[in-house]
């Protein structure tokens, strides 16, 4: 081992990052010793990725210091200091071979003559070191996600082999591949490589890590030795804030069944069944990649699926967004910027888009959109969308205002069923509260609402019933009286499939 165990390989003090005045990470500090495996945990948006990017040199911290081997680093360039990161989205070349991928950063031989024998050797040696059998001449796209991950790790460690940061490395892996990865992490750790393991699967954290850092809303809540902390405590630290349900006045679900989904299956989920009544708000919880968005998309015919979907008791065939609109159902996608809004068009047009026929009744005799401006202005006032005027382009708006525009657009068609995917993602607290109030009011007026969200406090706050999805399956159901954030999180993140709460 190159380092003595008394000097930390990497330490950081008060790491802080602000984007245009908004602080996303505030004062994260830790000492990382050789062979340590540290779990960096927190909910989505807690600042894990920003912290990672500062540590591997992709982002420059606004404040704070980074030390490598006790030496202050002026400008962190990651791999120069032996720090490498494997990001969620792998930086591999699918069409190239395993060996080519691993060595492309530092090719042996000259520019005009690559030493292919050496390339093979280096790759083979590295794979042997990792203890994995992969054909070095296979193209990367022909490999499974698990092996691709290993190739990326091998590639990373070729360039920098002191600190390895793994960002959500298990999301696309099968159970077997996951276990292989854990064995590999154990092995790397015994060889003195320090590892930062980013995840929100707490079982995985306990399986591979010895230390932990908990982030919440950008600040470091706690850190220390994992053995001293029970999982429940860790979950509470992640979720943090106590949820004030007192101010939410729910209506009782009234009327009949608005949506029933039976045995819906596709490549990403299996046998999903549930129903929603008119006036009811149903939350669907789960981790990223659990298949929640895919279910919503399948309901609206955006991806192929088997099984049946009933709207107001009537079975639907050949669903499309348009045919669902005829049935008074609407879907607000997760990625509003690419899938929902017309970014380079004014607010006015974005508001009227779904109900455009209401405004062109004049037909050919009088082209134009009678009343469009008037109605749009009214919506803007009612919804509290903070813009100077309705001709502002939507891409100039804040996330919260964008979401309000999207929600208002569909409200103009007076739907009876809303499916909202991550309705408050990237939205500030004030707008979040507004949107929640709108959602609750919509339900009071008789609409059925399904909210897909990774923000558990949001679901606990707004919904009357919560379903939990994990790895493509519905694994639990909670009534409002029985809401328990810790139970829901552990159900969503657990790696065994015993259903609970049903």
């Amino acid at each position, binding site marked *: 081992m190159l380092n003595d165990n008394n000097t930390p390989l990497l330490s950081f003090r008060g790491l802080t990052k602000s984007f245009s005045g908004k602080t996303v990470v505030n004062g994260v500090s830790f000492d990382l010793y050789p062979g340590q495996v540290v779990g960096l945990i927190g909910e989505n948006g807690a600042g894990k990725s920003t912290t990672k990017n500062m540590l591997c040199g992709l982002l420059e911290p606004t404040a704070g210091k980074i030390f490598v081997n006790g030496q202050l680093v002026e400008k962190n360039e990651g791999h120069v200091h032996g720090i490498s990161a494997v990001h969620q989205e792998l930086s591999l*070349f*699918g069409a190239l071979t395993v060996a080519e991928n691993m060595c492309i*950063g530092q090719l042996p031989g000259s*520019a005009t*003559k*690559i030493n*292919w024998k050496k390339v093979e050797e280096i790759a083979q040696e590295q794979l042997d070191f990792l203890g994995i059998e992969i054909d070095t001449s296979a193209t990367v796209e022909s490999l499974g996600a698990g092996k691709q991950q290993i190739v990326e790790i091998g590639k990373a460690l070729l360039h920098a082999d002191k600190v390895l940061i793994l960002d959500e490395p298990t999301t696309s892996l099968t*159970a077997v591949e996951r276990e292989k990865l854990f064995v590999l992490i154990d092995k790397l750790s015994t060889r003195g490589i320090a590892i930062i393991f980013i995840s929100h699967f707490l079982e995985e954290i306990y399986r591979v890590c010895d230390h932990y850092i908990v982030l919440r809303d950008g600040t470091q809540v706690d850190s220390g030795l994992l053995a001293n902390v029970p999982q429940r405590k860790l979950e509470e630290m992640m979720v943090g804030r106590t949820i004030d349900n007192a101010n939410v006045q729910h209506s009782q679900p009234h009327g009949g069944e608005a949506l029933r989904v039976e045995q819906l299956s596709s490549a990403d989920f299996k046998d999903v069944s549930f129903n929603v009544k008119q006036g009811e708000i149903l939350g669907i919880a789960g981790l990223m990649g659990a298949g929640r968005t895919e279910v919503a998309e399948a309901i609206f015919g955006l991806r192929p699926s088997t099984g049946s979907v009933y709207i107001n008791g009537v079975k639907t065939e050949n669903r499309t967004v348009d045919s669902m609109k005829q049935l008074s159902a609407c879907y607000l996608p997760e990625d509003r910027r690419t899938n929902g809004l017309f970014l380079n068009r004014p607010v006015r047009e974005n508001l009227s888009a779904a109900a455009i026929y209401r405004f062109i009744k004049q037909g050919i005799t009088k082209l134009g959109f009678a009343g469009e401006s008037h109605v749009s202005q009214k919506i803007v006032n009612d919804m509290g969308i903070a813009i100077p005027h309705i001709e502002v382009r939507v891409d100039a708006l804040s996330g919260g205002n964008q979401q309000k525009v999207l929600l208002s657009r569909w409200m103009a068609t007076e739907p009876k069923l809303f499916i909202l995917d991550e309705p408050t993602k990237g939205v500030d607290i004030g707008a979040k509260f507004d949107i929640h109030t709108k959602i609750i009011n919509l339900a009071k007026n008789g609409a059925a609402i399904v909210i897909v969200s990774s923000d558990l406090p949001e679901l606990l706050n707004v919904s009357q019933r919560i379903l939990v999805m994990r790895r493509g399956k519905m694994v639990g159901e909670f009534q409002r009286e029985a809401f328990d954030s810790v139970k829901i999180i552990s159900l969503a993140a657990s790696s065994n*499939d015993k259903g609970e709460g049903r």
Partner: protein
Amino acid sequence: MKSTLNSIISKQKWLPIALANMVFAALLAIVSPVFLTLSNFQSMLIQSGVTAIMAIGMTFIIITAGIDISMGAILFFCSALFAQLLQDTQSYWLAFSAAIACATLLGTINGVLVTRFKISPLITTLATYSIYRGMAIHLTGAQNIPVPREMGFLGNGKLFGLPVPIILLIVIFILGVYLLNHTRLGLYAKAIGSSARSANESNLPVTKVTVAVYAIGGMVTGISALILLARVGGLQSGIGIGIEFTVIAAVILGGTKLTGGSGTIVGSVFGAFFLVLIDNGLNLVNASPYIYDIVRGSVLLAAVAVDRLSAKRQESRLIQIKKQRLEHNHATN
């Protein structure tokens, strides 16, 4: 058995077009006794030489997920520059070196525009196509310029018993194969075409390599221009019109994907042969000259459709595997 065949084809993407060449050649040999003569073969090789050489350059460009529509215009500009300079100065060396240098420069300009302004290569080279052709016409005043008879050596002459265009093709072919498979430039080109994002994240010299492949494309087009000029006997206004279609078709037929990442030089050369073979076949059966383009276009469409279908099959197989994995996951959990 079938799966091993599939895996061989997936690794050696030039095999299908090589087989297609053989099958089609065999067919023609049965139909027409003239086909199997040495002179017919030689003339086919010479005919394909111009497009094959350009296809080698185009392969590099398409492998980076780019395209160069302006190749025909570069070809025309070079021919014009060469003919004009030769007429004015009577110096072969000056005309030669100016033409090749200029072709490389025009390719380089394409590359710089593509990387600098991040405009789609299709649009960029569509624009330069018009510019280059216009410049050439401006240069010569839209005149036809004959080249001296001794220029014919480059088009029809022989060296060591081999036609000169064939020798040039062989030399460029060997250089191209080496460049693509044994140098950083070649590997980086494949990497850029495979994933531009990863290439940037891996700090590869994306700009340099991209400019280089367009420059190579320009240079080989310059060489092709001289061969063509020698064969035609002088500058004519129709030179190079539509040749980029033949070149791109040859590359695609050769198994190089338009989306970038993978492709072979051998495949592109076979692709160029195949297109000439089709012309030859149509010629031997006395087909109307008007249907040539229809047949060429249909062949290209068929080739792309077959490729797309097999890709789709593979995709659905992957989805199947994903499904099985998911079920397996549920079972093991």
